[in-house]
């Protein structure tokens, strides 16, 4: 069957691609490597811990055998284990000096089901970062190019947040914000008055107002989003973009199929379709289309381009620049500070708020005040009270222990620092032809390390976090300055970056391959820099913008 467009992947950006393209009237095939998951049929959503054999914690012995990477994700547990990959069946290779945890969700909806929902605009401090300090290659777009697309995406997905008027973290089309708790309100005040910095509630793709016409309820404050939410209260492919695309009647979905190659026709310089493996029986199939959108997740989209090499393009599809696979990034992050606030122990909260608080970036904006680094860092975290798990760390037995754990305990404030990741050629993806997966597809090899800039940023973040929390009356009990493993932010990005120059970048400003007019890559692979805020909203806005451009080009006969 011939389609107007094939979309590879069904996650956050794949969902947006199918929505935009089908609503423009195109016949679209979406191919997803994982299984189908139907909205509302989330297996563990309503389970209580006592209904699970390992009480929600999960079988650690099983995880060591089957999920040795995914188990390092703090969101991976017995409730969510079905929404992350089996590492034994989905291997990848890392270089000798690489510690990279690649967290993956292979299913319809991809990581839109398991994401953290933090939703932030980037600013021109971010889009101008590469030009300004010379790392990487300059973005071919600026904030003004993306602002109307941010508006469109935010209004559709539903983002709750507070407008703060910050140039480094532009306001959006927000639903009413969730509330800062009593300790966060206090720290916000001190941080603003003493340092001129902004602590605000996390901007999150959880609805505070229902979108009844889309069948989406407002958030119920359960904070179990990651199991899947039958209320449709957070944005996912299933809750939002997939039903919109299905309603057009223009969408065909194939699940359980790994796209292993994109077919390229040298005579026309066009791609003609894709080849895929059906994972249930290993049989091969193919589909054709007038254009192809890659939304497989940054690393898998690059993997697919590398694996689509041909006689005409021996180094990988759309790789005349040689830049394909290079300058991959992930946010360097660490637990910068934990501080105790016993002065609030007479106060408490009710409800499970599904977002934290953040402190927006403040370094290296109009004044270059980074100590040994040229970019930004921000903090995510918030204040919480200890719970029954505090009993695990302290002496105490018997009725006194039981009595103590009956009430919430010490207030603590947690700040996790998130630092910009410098784009470096040495951080890259390649294919390991000696190692293949169960379908004979070469495995992806990841070479990645943070450098002195990220180390310096997190060192300064640690100092700042301790200073701010101390100024607010907290007692700092710990802090770290070393980044976790690459991939631990689950913001892996880059590898097929956007740029002005076809000699130094893979995509143009429309997320379109310089080499191939009917090939678009609109997931995290297109990123030329990382910023220090969460990237998913930007991926979505870039996808919507690319779809609009692609449809126009198609209608004008340019594709």
């Amino acid at each position: 069957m011939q389609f107007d467009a094939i979309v590879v992947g069904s996650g956050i950006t794949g969902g947006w691609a199918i929505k935009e393209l089908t609503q423009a009237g195109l016949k679209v095939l979406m191919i997803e490597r994982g299984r189908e998951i139907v909205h509302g049929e989330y297996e563990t959503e309503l389970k209580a811990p006592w209904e699970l054999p390992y009480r929600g914690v999960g079988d650690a012995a099983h995880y060591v055998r089957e999920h040795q990477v995914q188990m390092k994700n703090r969101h991976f547990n017995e409730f969510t284990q079905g929404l992350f990959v089996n590492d034994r069946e989905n291997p990848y290779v890392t270089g000798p000096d690489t510690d990279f945890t690649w967290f993956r969700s292979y299913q319809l909806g991809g990581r839109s089901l398991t994401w953290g929902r933090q939703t932030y605009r980037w600013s021109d401090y971010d889009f101008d970062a590469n030009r300004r300090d010379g790392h990487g290659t300059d973005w071919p777009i600026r904030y003004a190019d993306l602002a109307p697309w941010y508006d469109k995406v935010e209004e559709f997905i539903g983002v709750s947040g507070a407008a703060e008027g910050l140039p480094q973290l532009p306001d959006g089309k927000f639903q009413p914000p969730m509330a800062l708790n009593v300790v966060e309100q206090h720290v916000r005040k001190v941080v603003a008055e003493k340092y001129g910095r902004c602590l605000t509630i996390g901007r999150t793709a959880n609805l505070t107002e229902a979108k009844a016409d889309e069948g989406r309820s407002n958030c119920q404050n359960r904070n179990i989003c990651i199991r899947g939410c039958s209320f449709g209260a957070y944005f996912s492919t299933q809750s939002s973009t997939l039903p919109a695309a299905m309603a057009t009647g223009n969408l065909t979905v194939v699940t359980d199929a790994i796209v292993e190659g994109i077919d390229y026709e040298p005579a026309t310089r066009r791609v003609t379709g894709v080849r895929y493996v059906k994972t249930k029986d290993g049989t091969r199939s193919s589909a054709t289309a007038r254009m192809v959108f890659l939304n497989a997740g940054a690393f898998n989209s690059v993997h697919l381009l590398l694996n689509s090499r041909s006689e005409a393009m021996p180094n990988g599809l759309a790789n005349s620049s040689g830049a394909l696979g290079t300058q991959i990034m992930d946010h360097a992050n660490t637990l910068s500070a934990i501080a105790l606030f016993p002065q609030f122990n007479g106060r408490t909260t009710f409800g499970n708020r599904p977002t934290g608080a953040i402190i927006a970036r403040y370094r290296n904006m109009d004044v270059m005040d980074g100590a040994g680094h040229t970019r930004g860092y921000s903090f995510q975290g918030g204040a919480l009270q200890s719970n029954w798990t505090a009993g695990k760390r302290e002496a105490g037995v018997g009725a006194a222990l039981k009595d103590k754990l009956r009430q919430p305990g010490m207030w603590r404030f947690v700040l996790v620092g998130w630092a910009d990741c410098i784009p470096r050629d040495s951080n890259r993806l390649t294919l390991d032809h000696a190692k293949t997966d169960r379908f004979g597809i070469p495995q992806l090899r990841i070479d990645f390390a943070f450098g002195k800039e990220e180390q310096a940023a997190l060192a300064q973040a640690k100092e700042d976090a301790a200073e701010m929390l101390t100024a607010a009356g907290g007692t700092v009990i710990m802090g770290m300055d070393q980044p976790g493993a690459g991939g631990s932010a689950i913001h892996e990005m880059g590898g097929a970056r956007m740029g002005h120059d076809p000699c130094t970048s893979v995509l143009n400003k429309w997320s379109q391959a310089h080499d191939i007019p009917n090939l678009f890559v609109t997931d995290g692979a297109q990123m030329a820099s990382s910023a220090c805020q969460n990237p998913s909203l930007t991926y979505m806005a870039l996808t919507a913008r690319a779809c609009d451009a692609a449809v126009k080009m198609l209608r004008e006969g340019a594709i």
Partner: protein
Amino acid sequence: MTEPQTSGWNRREFFSATALLALALGLPVAAVQSTPLAPEDAPTDGQRALMADVSQLLIPATTTPGAGDVGAGGFAILALAHGLDHARAAPHNVAPYERFLRRDGSVRHVAWLESELDARANGNFSALPPAQRLGLISALDAQAFATRESESPWKAIKSLILTGYYTSEAGAAQELRYEPVPARYDPDLPLTPDFRTISNDWTAVEFG
């Protein structure tokens, strides 16, 4: 709920060992089917009784059931063997636990606890009156938590008994409050004496 009575369990019977083990631990067969306990981790009747007793001493019955009442000891036996809360990590200093090491270097916590408590009791721990048993557990606990560096196996045992209790229906929803659909967020409330912890405040469970 009470600890299951399974006096017929014979650890040398390998036929249907998984089903028997599930029965012994009071868990669905599916819970242990994929990864049955190795024979060396299968509890003796005495060890099961000891874990139930220690659980009840740690979290006694008050107006709500105790940890022994709800099978937290059985859960801890499974959880320790399967490495929850890093219970299968090998200690840095193995010398004190040499008699209880598995081949992977990890400690067989239940066997260690049985031996340790009997040694502290100068005989049979289980034969002592409750107040003395609680006193010995209290001393063991105080020593284990005296320093952050302590590698006492008691830390993991206590940790997983607490998990077993506070994730049981009685612990989570009677002793504490289980609120599956709060439907609102109150950011600032007075902490009054009648306010009970929300057992499913997952952020607090993780970071608290």
